[in-house]
């Protein structure tokens, strides 16, 4: 069939393929329901971007798009591309500017009734203690360049070593919160400057802190392994590497612009600019990107520490009574070296996940030992009014998506349309009527981030459930939200 003048073929109920054509090296594959296709919610440029990614040298099997896919720049948001490590390229555009933007889920011993009367106080205290908004600066003291270098070399451990976390926080962070062999040698002074005072800041836009409850459990045994129970108070943190990561990506793309011609690669979009993985330019980007990833894991760790202090302050509990602990921290903007089976043979690949989350199956040694029997937890935040999901990766994900899943609901409306549609409405009151207390830095952000601006995350998660890529464990419902 033709979709926005692009030929697509149905592979299964929720999986569609754009056949290889022109200079595409592999076909494109997109996870979508027929209903989503019929409603024409996928912008034609999203599919063009999926096709463009299929031009990257060394791409294997498919250029993939998850069901939360939407129009980005270079890669579509929700795009996954696995590239042959020996012969292929790395593209900073396949990671994005907010390197290691990701989500962290922490749980407590508390139930909804324990905090019901204190939700505004909790949110206001979190809002006061955690810097949010455009150009927010750190709640912890500005660090020196040498200290930042130490942070970059040990990732989340830096926060734990400075009393802002415990050992188990490291265990339950993807990659244990650190790319160990990264080098900060190629990082510009501008990037360092931007990194000095943004550790422990949320930022703006779609970044958020959400206080919520476990609203429904679908898989009791997996929920038990993850330490989840009904009505449990939870906290979600969504942010990334802040200005430090943005600057590293910007610097890397600028450098590649200067050297790109020598590689003799032809690309349909300049934003996909890339370098052979094994070239000095490719390695320089990868090691700098890893530093930014370490910064992001530390950022979320410090925010979690500030959040714990805020909860203790308001609730007047001991740490033991609060039981604030990390379930998992996962990245959704990253490139990682992984082993995957290609035509029955183990191959080393560089998986670019741009607005996509790793979703490894049970028994994978990259998963914390405690979760290895069930599969890797995948954190899928929805919009600020409806719900979010915890799912787990499956063997089907390993077979079909290079162990990848969606990263959220995906935008449905542009910011401009969201602003238009919010006119005359009181979003704060609408959320309040649904039992959600909102604190935000600006009315513009509230309008741009209103629930209707996003697809229904349940539809997104159900597509991957139906295709056996991930399995639902629990649904979370927000009761208090902070937006930057």
């Amino acid at each position: 069939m033709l979709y926005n003048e692009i030929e697509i073929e149905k592979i299964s109920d929720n999986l569609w393929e754009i056949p290889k054509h022109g200079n595409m090296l592999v076909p494109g594959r997109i996870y979508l329901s027929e209903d989503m296709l019929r409603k024409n919610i996928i912008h034609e440029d999203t599919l063009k971007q999926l096709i463009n990614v299929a031009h990257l040298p060394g791409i294997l099997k498919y250029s993939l798009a998850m069901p939360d896919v939407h129009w980005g720049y270079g890669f579509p948001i929700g795009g996954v591309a696995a590239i042959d490590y020996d012969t292929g390229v790395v593209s900073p555009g396949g990671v994005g500017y907010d390197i290691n933007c990701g989500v962290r889920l922490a749980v407590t011993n508390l139930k909804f009734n324990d905090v019901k009367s204190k939700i505004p106080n909790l949110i206001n205290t979190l809002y006061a203690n955690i810097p949010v908004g455009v150009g927010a600066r750190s709640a912890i003291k500005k660090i020196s360049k040498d200290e930042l270098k130490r942070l970059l070399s040990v990732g989340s451990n830096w926060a734990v070593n400075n009393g802002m976390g415990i050992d188990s926080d490291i265990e339950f962070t993807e990659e244990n919160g650190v790319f160990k062999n990264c080098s900060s040698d190629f990082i510009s002074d501008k990037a360092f400057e931007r990194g000095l005072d943004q550790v422990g800041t949320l930022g703006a836009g779609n970044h958020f802190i959400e206080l919520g409850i476990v609203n429904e459990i679908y898989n009791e045994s997996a929920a038990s392994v993850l330490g989840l129970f009904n009505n449990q108070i939870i906290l979600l943190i969504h942010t990334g590497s802040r200005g430090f990561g943005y600057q590293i990506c910007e610097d890397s793309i600028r450098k590649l612009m200067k050297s790109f011609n020598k590689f003799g690669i032809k690309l349909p979009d300049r934003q996909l600019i890339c370098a052979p993985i094994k070239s000095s330019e490719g390695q320089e980007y990868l090691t700098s990107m890893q530093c930014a990833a370490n910064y992001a894991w530390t950022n979320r760790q410090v925010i979690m520490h500030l959040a714990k202090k805020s909860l203790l302050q308001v609730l007047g509990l001991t740490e033991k009574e609060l039981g604030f602990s990390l379930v998992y921290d996962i990245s959704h903007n990253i490139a990682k070296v992984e082993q995957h089976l290609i035509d029955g043979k183990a191959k080393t690949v560089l998986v670019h996940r741009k607005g996509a989350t790793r979703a490894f199956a049970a028994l994978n040694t990259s998963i914390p030992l405690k979760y290895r029997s069930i599969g890797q937890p995948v954190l899928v935040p929805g919009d600020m009014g409806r719900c979010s999901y915890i799912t787990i990766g499956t063997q089907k994900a390993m077979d079909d998506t290079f162990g990848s899943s969606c990263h959220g609901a995906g935008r449905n409306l542009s910011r401009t349309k969201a602003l238009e549609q919010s006119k005359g409405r009181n979003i704060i009151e609408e959320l309040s009527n649904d039992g959600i207390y909102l604190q935000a830095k600006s009315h513009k952000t509230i309008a741009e981030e209103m629930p209707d601006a996003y697809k229904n995350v349940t539809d997104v998660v159900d597509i991957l459930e139906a295709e056996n890529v991930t399995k639902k464990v629990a649904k979370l419902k927000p009761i208090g939200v902070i937006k930057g």
Partner: protein
Amino acid sequence: MVWNYNYIDHTADIAAEITGSTPEDLVLGAFALLKNILIEGDIKSFETRKIELKASSLEEIIVDVLSELNYLALVKRWVFNEITDISIKKSKDTWEVFLDVKGEIFNSAKHILKEEVKAITYHNLNIKIEDNIYKTSIYFDV
């Protein structure tokens, strides 16, 4: 001085089409666009900052100028008001831009930083000349 910009509807980020009668006008249009995206409030031209950049294409010049202005606003807390002097030179493989930008130190009592622009991207950045008008689209990651 003839330049213009119009926002393009984009699902996740901010995009616009800019036009200008010369390369300099195109940069002036891009400057006005970024100012509109980033800053609200009364900005005075108290101080001049010189920006001098080299690149291999006019597209790169535009990205580099906007990136520098974004850095000045978000990191240096210096908000820009106007460009009072601009020249662009092209030699064989190099474009050079010289700017005098006027503005002032960010003051939270009268300025608001409206948006955290993560970066100015190269997506669909392709300058075309149609009927003697320079034209391009530009996408901001926000």
